[in-house]
């Protein structure tokens, strides 16, 4: 019951806001807006109550409920989304209806996604989330926003198409199967390639390397709270999709796991490499998200390499997602509060960067070590664990660049919104609390501490070397590969439109002259002339004799 309320409230609020705006009741709209930020907290209620409901009426038999896999993302969503909502409540001034429609739509989608117990409801939530996110991305209404929106929509729809193929392939055999049953006996996996369609579909949302093009464009261009939510929480929906729909079987061929692992590491390093070439703070943070998601993929690949490690994987990935979500969201919120304006703000900005770089004793350390232990379980080459720690160095470098960019934002007029520090604190504390509750082994053995220190040291060395040497920075346009692709498409499109341009214009528009019969053509004139001829008596007489003669012959001789 509580789950249903959690899903319905955002929608009801959206409709209420909408009709208030449409009917011009500005005062009512204002009050509703004040409510909006605190809706995500409703998520906690089903978490606590833990009630699972089944409602046959809506959609194809909706099941709602909370289960283990979804808890970390649920907590993350509740905290990050409400903080960002509080921030948005005061900071978003123009284009409010557009922003809040997108915001509440995305929220409703996220709620349904998290609480869904069957495939159809999950897909409904996911689709609603993707579509509403488009509104958030294009809210500023600038040309850059439109371009980002277009790229985002095309890739999101492509992803959703892949998703639909996968879901329908499953639905063919199991109908609208509950998610629990899907994970429990993945017999359907062998029947069709559904699993890989789903993997690709969710990869788009997570921004895994080849499919990441939209992320560096969309996240920075959105208003600050929206980017926080996009990068912090909405990205994790993809992870949830993987955990639900891409189970690993026992005798899985090794190369699949290895490939995924390699892709994860490539994304992690690629994200950082591209991030370093950017000049804007929010774009750098966006690329950092891509690289962090790569790390998630490596963790996820472990399930394919070694059987029976699902609970451990869930715990590690959940912790990592929680840690990354909270810290990344707080970083994005920082961008809205001029972090470089005072040393106190710089310190606040530094905390999450250190966490993300997995400095010892931070939530990042906790999540990273859990991840390293997980990967160690898999029978992979020793090289993999080395590369994994190298990613920490890379992230540290990226965080250093971000810190450098943040220092430049010194506009003191922008006030410090309390939501930011709150989120930073949450980012520090909540992962620890979660780890304790989750029963993860918490040890501060010296080798673990050392293992997390040397990458940072290496990073510091590299930074020193880099600033002394040339200081020349490599510049790359945002969204890297997108630019050449766009140019190609516009070239192709232009020619296509010219080719059939004439045809669309020629389609008959309405003209209002009344209808009159057309003139007789030459053939018709001849026909009418023949007709006039038949009217004259001699011709009629001859015709009569001819017909009579023919009839006479046929009757006489045809009859036998």
């Amino acid at each position, binding site marked *: 019951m509580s789950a249903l309320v959690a899903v319905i409230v955002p929608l009801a609020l959206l409709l209420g806001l909408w009709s208030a705006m449409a009917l011009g009741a500005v005062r009512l709209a204002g009050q509703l807006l004040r409510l909006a930020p605190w809706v995500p907290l409703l998520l906690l209620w089903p978490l606590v109550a833990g009630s699972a409901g089944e409602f046959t009426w809506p959609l194809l038999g909706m099941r709602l409920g909370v289960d283990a896999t979804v808890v970390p993302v649920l907590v993350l969503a509740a905290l990050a989304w409400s903080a960002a909502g509080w921030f948005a409540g005061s900071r978003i001034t123009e284009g409010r209806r557009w922003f809040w429609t997108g915001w509440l739509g995305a929220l409703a989608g996220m709620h349904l996604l998290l609480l869904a117990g069957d495939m159809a409801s999950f897909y409904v939530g996911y689709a609603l989330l993707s579509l509403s996110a488009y509104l958030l991305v294009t809210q500023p209404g600038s040309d850059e926003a439109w371009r980002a929106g277009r790229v985002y929509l095309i890739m999101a729809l492509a992803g959703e198409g892949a998703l639909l193929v996968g879901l329908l392939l499953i639905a063919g055999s199991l109908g609208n199967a509950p998610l629990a049953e899907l994970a429990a006996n993945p017999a359907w996996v062998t029947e069709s390639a559904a699993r890989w369609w789903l993997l690709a579909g969710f990869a788009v949302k997570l921004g895994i390397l080849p499919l990441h093009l939209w992320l560096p464009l969309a996240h920075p261009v959105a208003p600050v709270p929206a980017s926080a939510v996009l990068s912090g929480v909405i990205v994790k929906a993809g992870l949830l999709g993987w955990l639900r729909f891409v189970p690993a079987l026992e005798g899985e061929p090794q190369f699949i796991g290895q490939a995924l692992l390699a892709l994860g590491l490539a994304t992690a390093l690629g994200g950082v490499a591209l991030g370093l070439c950017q000049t804007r703070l929010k774009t750098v943070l966006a690329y950092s998200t891509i690289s962090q998601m790569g790390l998630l993929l490596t963790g996820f690949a472990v399930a394919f390499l070694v059987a029976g490690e699902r609970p451990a994987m869930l715990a590690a990935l959940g912790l990592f997602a929680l840690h990354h979500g909270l810290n990344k969201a707080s970083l994005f919120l920082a961008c809205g509060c001029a972090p470089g304006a005072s040393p106190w703000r710089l310190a606040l900005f530094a905390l999450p960067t250190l966490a993300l770089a997995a400095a010892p004793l931070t939530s990042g350390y906790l999540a990273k070590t859990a991840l390293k232990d997980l990967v160690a379980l898999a029978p992979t080459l020793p090289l993999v664990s080395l590369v994994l720690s190298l990613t920490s160095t890379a992230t540290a470098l990226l965080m250093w660049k971000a810190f450098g960019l943040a220092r430049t934002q010194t506009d003191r007029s922008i006030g410090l919104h309390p939501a930011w520090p709150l989120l930073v604190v949450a980012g520090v504390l909540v992962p620890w609390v979660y780890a304790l509750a989750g029963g993860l082994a918490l040890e501060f053995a010296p080798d673990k501490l050392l293992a997390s220190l040397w990458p940072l040291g290496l990073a510091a060395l590299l930074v020193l070397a880099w600033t002394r040497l040339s200081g020349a920075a490599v510049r790359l346009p945002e969204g890297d590969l997108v630019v050449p692709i766009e140019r190609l498409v516009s070239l192709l499109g232009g020619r296509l439109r010219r080719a059939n341009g004439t045809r669309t214009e020629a389609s008959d528009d309405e003209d209002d002259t009344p209808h009159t019969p057309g003139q007789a053509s030459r053939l018709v004139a001849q026909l009418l002339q023949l007709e*006039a001829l038949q009217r*004259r*008596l*001699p011709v009629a*007489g*001859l015709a009569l004799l001819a017909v009579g003669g023919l009839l006479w012959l046929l009757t006489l001789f045809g009859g036998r």
Partner: protein
Amino acid sequence: MSHAEVWVIAAAAVFGIGLYSLLIASHLLRQLIAIKVMGSAIFLVLVVAAGPIDGALDGLPKALVLTGIVIAISAIAFALALLVRLAEVTGSTSLEDEADDDR
């Protein structure tokens, strides 16, 4: 050739002449006369076709011929009245050279 066949062939000849002149003539009056000639040819056939049936003369064809003559007369009279009216109104006594009347 028996007695009857001679008459039938003669009647056929008269009928042919009448038909020919009906189709060829342009003046309506000649066409009406041609129709009268064809009518009499048919009555000739009717009379000859009578032929004695088991001794007694068969009176039916005679009655038919009489009725036929009455009908032919009334038809021709009506046609003549129509011809006169047509000549008065349109001034032409022939169907050939008329302008298309239905435009």
